[in-house]
C-alpha cells in the first residue's frame, strides 16, 4: 500500500479541503488508473488519548471501510486545528483500476465541538452519504453534526444503562438513520431464529411461543433487549417493563397468552449474546448457544427427546461487526425501529 501525505499545524478546513483535492489531482495525473473511491464519508469524533485505539479498530473492519474517513481527536483546552491527510492506494497492474482511500486526521479542541459542522462540512466528499460515529460520547459533536449526518453509528452496548442507551438511539432516529452495533450483534441470532421457524410446519409455532430467554455478556444487555424487542415487534407482542437487578425478567402479552421473557447475563468474555432459548406451549423448544465454529443448536421435541447439532459460522469479531456497521450505512433495515420501540418498552 502506498501513501501520499499532507500535514499542517494550526490549519483551517479550507486548507484541508484544498490538500485533499491537490493530492487527488497529483495522484490521478501521475497514474490515470488511480481513482478515488466514492462510497461513504465516515466522521469519527474521539478522545485524543484513545485516537490510536479507534484507528486500530477502523483498520480491522476488513473489506467494508469508508472511502473518506475523517477522524477528529478532541483534546481538552486545544484552540487550534492540526490536520494530516493520507491518501492510500495500491498501484494497479495491467488494465486494472486502483482505488484511492482518503483519511483525514484532525486534532481539535473541545471548544470546536459545538460548531463542528463548520469544520467538517467543507471536508466531507459531496454527493455521498455521511456517517457520524462518536464512540466516546461527545453528544455535543453529534448534535452539531446532525445537519450533515445521513447515518449515525452508535453502540447501545457501550452505555452502562440499556434504557438510556435505547432512549438515545430512539431520539437520534428522529434526525438520521441509526446503525446500532448492539443491533448488529444480534444479526446471526435473528437470522438463525428466522430460519429455524421458516419451514411451513414450524411457522405456526411462532404464535405459540411462551418463553424467550436470552443470555448475554454482562455489558451487552442492550443487545439482548433488542433481540427480545425484535421478537415482540415481529410477532405483535405487547412488551411490558421487565424487572430485576441486572438480569431482567417479565412478560410480553401475545394475543392469547403471555410470553415469559428473561434476559440474563453470563460470564462470556466477548461482547454480544451467549445464547437464546425459545420454547412453545406444548414443550417444543430450540436453544442456540455460542460455540466453537458457530452455534450449538439443541432442539427438544414435545415428547422430551433432544437432538443437538452444530450450526456453522465463523465469529465476525468486534472488527467485523464494526465493518458491518459501516456497510449498513448504505442499507436500510426497517425492523430496527419497531424492535427498538419494543425494547424500550421492556426497559420500562
Amino acid at each position, binding site marked *: 500500500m502506498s501513501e501520499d501525505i499532507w500535514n499542517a499545524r494550526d490549519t483551517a478546513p479550507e486548507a484541508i479541503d484544498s490538500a485533499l483535492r491537490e493530492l487527488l489531482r497529483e495522484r490521478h495525473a501521475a497514474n490515470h488508473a488511480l481513482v478515488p473511491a466514492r462510497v461513504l464519508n465516515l466522521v469519527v469524533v474521539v478522545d485524543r488519548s484513545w485516537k490510536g485505539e479507534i484507528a486500530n479498530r477502523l483498520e480491522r473492519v476488513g473489506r467494508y471501510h469508508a472511502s473518506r474517513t475523517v477522524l477528529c481527536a478532541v483534546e481538552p483546552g486545544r484552540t487550534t486545528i492540526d490536520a494530516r491527510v493520507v491518501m492510500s492506494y495500491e498501484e494497479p497492474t495491467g488494465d*486494472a483500476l486502483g482505488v484511492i482511500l482518503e483519511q483525514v486526521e484532525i486534532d481539535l479542541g473541545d471548544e470546536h465541538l459545538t460548531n463542528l459542522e463548520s469544520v467538517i462540512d467543507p471536508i466531507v466528499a459531496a454527493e455521498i452519504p455521511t456517517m457520524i460515529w462518536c464512540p466516546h460520547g461527545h453528544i455535543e459533536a453529534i448534535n452539531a453534526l446532525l445537519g450533515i449526518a445521513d447515518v449515525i453509528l452508535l453502540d447501545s452496548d457501550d452505555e452502562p444503562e440499556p434504557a438510556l442507551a435505547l432512549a438515545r438511539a430512539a431520539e437520534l432516529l428522529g434526525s438520521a438513520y441509526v446503525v446500532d452495533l448492539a443491533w448488529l450483534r444480534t444479526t446471526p441470532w435473528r437470522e438463525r*431464529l428466522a*430460519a429455524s*421457524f421458516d*419451514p411451513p410446519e414450524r411457522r405456526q409455532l*411462532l404464535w405459540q411461543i411462551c418463553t424467550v430467554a436470552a443470555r448475554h455478556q454482562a455489558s451487552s444487555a442492550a443487545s439482548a433487549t433488542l433481540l427480545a424487542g425484535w421478537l415482540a415487534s*415481529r410477532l405483535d407482542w405487547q412488551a411490558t417493563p421487565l424487572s430485576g437487578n441486572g438480569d431482567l425478567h417479565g412478560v410480553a402479552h401475545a394475543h392469547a397468552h403471555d410470553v415469559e421473557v428473561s434476559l440474563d447475563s453470563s460470564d462470556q468474555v466477548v461482547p454480544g449474546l451467549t445464547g437464546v432459548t425459545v420454547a412453545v406451549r406444548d414443550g417444543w423448544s430450540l436453544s442456540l448457544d455460542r460455540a466453537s465454529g458457530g452455534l450449538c443448536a439443541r432442539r427438544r421435541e414435545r415428547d422430551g427427546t433432544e437432538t443437538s447439532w452444530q450450526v456453522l459460522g465463523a465469529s465476525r469479531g468486534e472488527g467485523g461487526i464494526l465493518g458491518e456497521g459501516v456497510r449498513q450505512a448504505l442499507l436500510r433495515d426497517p425492523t430496527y425501529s419497531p424492535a427498538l420501540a419494543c425494547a424500550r418498552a421492556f426497559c420500562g
Partner: protein
Amino acid sequence: MTAVAENPLVEGLERLPVHPTVLVIFGATGDLAHRKLLPALYNLAHQGALPERFELVGVSRSKYAHEEFQQIARESIERFSRTKPDPAVLDGLLSDMRYIPGVFDDDSVYAEVGRTLDDLDGKAGYPLSRVFYLSTAPQFFPVIVGELGKAGLNSAEQRDTRVVIEKPFGYDLASARRLNADVLKVFDESQVFRIDHYLGKETVQNLMAFRFANALFEPVWNRNFVDYVQITAVEDIGIEGRAGYYEGAGALRDLVQNHMLQLLALLTMEPPASFEANRLRDEKLKVLESIVPPVVESVPSMAMRSQYGPGVQAGVPARGYREEDGVAPDSRTETYAALRLQISNWRWAGVPFYLRTGKRVARKLTEIAVQLKPVPHLAFQSQGSVGVQPNQIVLTVQPDEGVSISLGAKIPGPRMRIRPVSMEFHYGTSFVSQSPEAYERLILDAMRGDATLFTRNDEIEALWGIVDPILTAWKQDTASPIPQYPAGSQGPPDANSLLAPGHAWRRL
C-alpha cells in the same frame, strides 16, 4: 392450529432462510468441485449462510473412504477458498461429509445414496430437502437423472427435491431437446436448475439494475436511438490445456450459446413485471425467440470463425492453436467467432447486434457497447477537432465493472470545437466490498428454490436454436480454409466483413 402463510421474522433480514438441506454432488472429486463448489460451500459456512442443518454427500468414480474424501475437500478449500478457513468451521463442515464411490450407471450406487439420505433424515429427525448437483461430464447427465428416477430419489412429496445441472446443457439443439426430455421425464421443471455461473456474477445482475433502476436510459433503449450494439467477450489466454474439451466445443458453444446470448437477452428484453423467476425468464425467452435464426445458407454472411495462429502475447512468442498440446494439426475448431444478429420486434427491428468472442487476443475484456445514432443536425463546425461523435454507452463486465458514456464536449478556447469525452462510473469505486463468488449465490439460490438466475427448458432450446444453424453450416463446410489471426492481436480482420457500412469493432 392456523396455518401461517408468511414468516414474520424474515422481514428486514439480508440473508433469507434456507431450509435444512442435504446436497449430493455427483462428480465430487472433479475439477469443478475441487476449484469452485467445495470452496463456495466453505465460504457459505464461514458466513453462516448454510442452512441450520446442512449435509454433504459426494459421489464419484474414485474409490475413497469418507475420511479420504474429507481430506481432499479440505485441501480444495484451503487452496481455493476466497476466505482464509477458520479451523473450527472447516472441521465442522468436513466432519460429517459422506462419500459414495461408484460408476454413475450402477443401480447400487443410487441405492447407497438413498440409504445415506434416509440415514441423514433420521439423524435430523425430519425430511431434509435434497439437492442433487450434477457436476460430471455432460454424457452422464441423462444417466444420473434416469438412475435418480429409477431409485425414486426424484420424489418431492415429503420434501423439496431439486436437481442442478451444470453446463453444457446439450451439444446442439437436438441434444439439448433430448436432454430436456430425459430430465423432464424424471423431474418437474420447477425442480430443475440449469446452471450458467455467468448469471450468478454480480456484474451480470448489475446489468438489470442499470436498465431497470434508472429512468435515464429506457427512453433511448430502442431502434429510434440505437444505431448498433456490440457484445465482446474475449480473453488473452489460450485453451490452457483443455484441448480435450475445447476441440469438441469451440468458441461458439463455449461462450456465445450461453453467456453472450444471456447478456444479449438481459440487454434487450422488455422490463419484467417483477423479478420472480418465471416473469424474468418469460421476458428473456420472448426476446430470444425474436432473434430470427439464420438459414444454413446465409450463415457466411452473418457469422465468421477463425483460429489463433502463432503470434506474440505480452512480448512473448505464443503458439498457434493447432500447435497446442492435444489439438489436431488440421483442427477446424474455431477459437474466435463473430456474428451479426437481428431482433425482430418493435423495439429492436433493424438494429444490428454484433457479438464476438475469441481466445488469445490482445487483452481480456467483456463489455457491451451501445452506439447511439448521430445527432440529426450539427450546428457546429468540426474543423480543428475530431468532431462530434455519436454517444456510446459502454457497460464493462470485466475486468473493471462499470459504465461509461461518451459525450461531446467543447474544447476550451475561443472556437466552438467539440471532442468526445468520457463520463465513467466504476463499481469498484462506489462499493468498496468484495463480490461473492457466483457459485456461492447460485448454490444458495438452488437450495432455496429460487430459479431466477437459472435457465429454463424453453430458454435453453431458444439459445441453441439461434446457434444451431451456424454450427450446422460450419460442420458442413469442410473445405474452406479457417482464417487465422495472430495470437495477441485484435482478432481476425475478416470479422469486419460482418459490419454494416460506417460500423466498426471497438478496439480491444
